[in-house]
């Protein structure tokens, strides 16, 4: 099992991998209690969703899907979360890059501000948005003068989603950008790349797995958004009633429909999260195939470039 005897003929990467696997195996043995501690939390995360699935029959789900609230809510959720995710990525990526590249207290303060909406209860976010963009809000007078109304519109739905979901993407993207070796960017610049070129052709591809995980988290948070939407945007089918709101409203009329709607939402989300999780690996495989001749060298540098 010694890496030296088997790995010597096969180059550095295989040896490094075996050594790492051996280390991991030792670490695993050292924590024999690990499953005992980890299983309850895993159970708590998964069992309630399983119970949800067990509580619904296919007939219940068929009935829920035929509910007049279902299709408008699903379409509205899809439309608004895609829009909010796009806006989060477009505006959040430069901010994350700045946070990752800027030392000092000011950037750390901005980082804390970015985190704030995660801590603040969503209902409070909703009230805060009303007090900013509502009729009597900070910008209420200006918006009224321009003839713009934000509360009770689909725009308000997207804004609520932006506020609650952007922090997840920005934090993940900043962490991913921090793992990009600054030397690589300097090399790219010396090879004639503009700052934008270095960013898009070196930093973004290297950070991509982290960016995708962040986007997935952020999207999932936007999809589940409830409290801020209810307060800031209200609840009207086709206008502002997203899936979580439709589920809550169904609870008032028929619990079975609510449960089945929740299952549909959970199912769709699971599928999309799986795809997003698989995407970086697929990307890496495509990348490796494209760069086949230099594959060995890249693998050799793997451990240093890998996430810490």
């Amino acid at each position, binding site marked *: 099992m010694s890496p030296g005897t088997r790995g010597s003929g096969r180059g550095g990467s295989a040896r490094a991998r075996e050594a790492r696997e051996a280390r991991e195996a030792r670490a695993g043995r050292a924590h024999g209690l690990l499953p005992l501690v980890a299983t309850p939390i895993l159970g708590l995360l998964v069992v309630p969703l399983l119970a949800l699935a067990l509580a619904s029959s296919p007939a219940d789900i068929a009935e829920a899907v035929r509910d007049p609230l279902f299709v408008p809510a699903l379409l509205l959720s899809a439309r608004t979360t895609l829009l909010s995710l796009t806006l989060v990525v477009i505006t959040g990526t430069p901010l994350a890059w700045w946070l990752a590249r800027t030392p000092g207290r000011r950037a750390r303060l901005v980082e804390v501000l970015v985190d704030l909406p995660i801590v603040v209860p969503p209902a409070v976010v909703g009230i805060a948005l009303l007090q900013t963009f509502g*009729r009597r809000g900070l910008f209420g007078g200006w918006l009224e003068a321009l003839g713009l109304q934000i509360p009770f519109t689909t725009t308000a739905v997207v804004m609520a989603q932006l506020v609650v979901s952007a922090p997840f993407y920005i934090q993940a993207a900043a962490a991913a950008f921090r793992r990009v070796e600054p030397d690589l960017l300097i090399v790219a610049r010396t090879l004639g790349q503009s700052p934008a070129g270095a960013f898009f052709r070196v930093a973004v591809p290297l950070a991509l797995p982290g960016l995708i995980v962040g986007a997935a988290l952020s999207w999932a948070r936007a999809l589940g958004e409830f409290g801020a939407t*209810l307060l800031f945007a209200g609840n009207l089918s086709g206008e502002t009633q997203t899936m979580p709101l439709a589920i809550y*409203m169904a609870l008032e009329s028929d619990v079975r429909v609510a449960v089945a709607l929740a299952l549909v939402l959970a199912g769709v989300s699971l599928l999309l999260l799986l795809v997003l999780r698989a995407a970086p690996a697929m990307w890496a495989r495509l990348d490796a195939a494209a760069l086949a001749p230099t594959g060995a060298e890249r693998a050799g540098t793997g451990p240093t470039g890998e996430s810490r």
Partner: protein
Amino acid sequence: MRGIAKGLGTRWFRLAGVLLFAGCQGDTDERATLSVYAASSLTEAFGELEASFERARPEVDVTVTFAGSQVLRIQIEEGAPADVFASANPEHLEALVDAGRVREGHVFASNELVVIVPLDNPAGIESFADLVGARRLVLGTPDVPVGRYAREALARADSAVRAGFQAAVLANLVSEEPNVRLARAKVELGEADAAIVYLTDAAGSDRIRSIPIPDEVNVQAAYLIGAVERPGRSEHADAWIELVLSAEGRAALERHGFVTE
């Protein structure tokens, strides 16, 4: 295999139950308990009655849980330890009576609807007929009692006020709120021009103005109370119901805007 696992599970569950029970008995003092589940709109009135009940019977510890009637009904159906259920809607209590979970229902109060507007009244609503001028109207969802009653009132207004009234008003509906307090909040914040809520909710806020709804249009919402049937239920449930139906109970309810016979 499955049978064994199930049997084992049940045994552990029972053991845990016995231990928990023993633990509870050892810890608590000798006070009896009474658990009252009540609709949110009863918060203030039942809060007063709780203090009065405990003063009269110091040996009983009363806890009152307030939530939407629908939520309370689901909890009681799922076996929540309630001794008394007070519902803002006959349907929820009657469903539990039919299921054998509640002994019988007594009507103890009723509530009616009013229109509320922000203090600055941006849409200039002075009467029920002015409701068509509300550019942003908020109601309860059609599934919560307050939303259903409001729609009933609007439907009656088609003949009582003028034809097409309901459609004209609903054309300006911007949000259907899951409970009456959220509908009121939208008006308190000045975001909605008007909402239709219970008289009791209007009475509980000084940030809104209320406009009466004519009797020929208005809806009486009956509140029902009943004792919950469950093993180990409190023997004081009937005493609580008697208090609510007594002159003192009626006075407390009327102080908070309810109508009692």
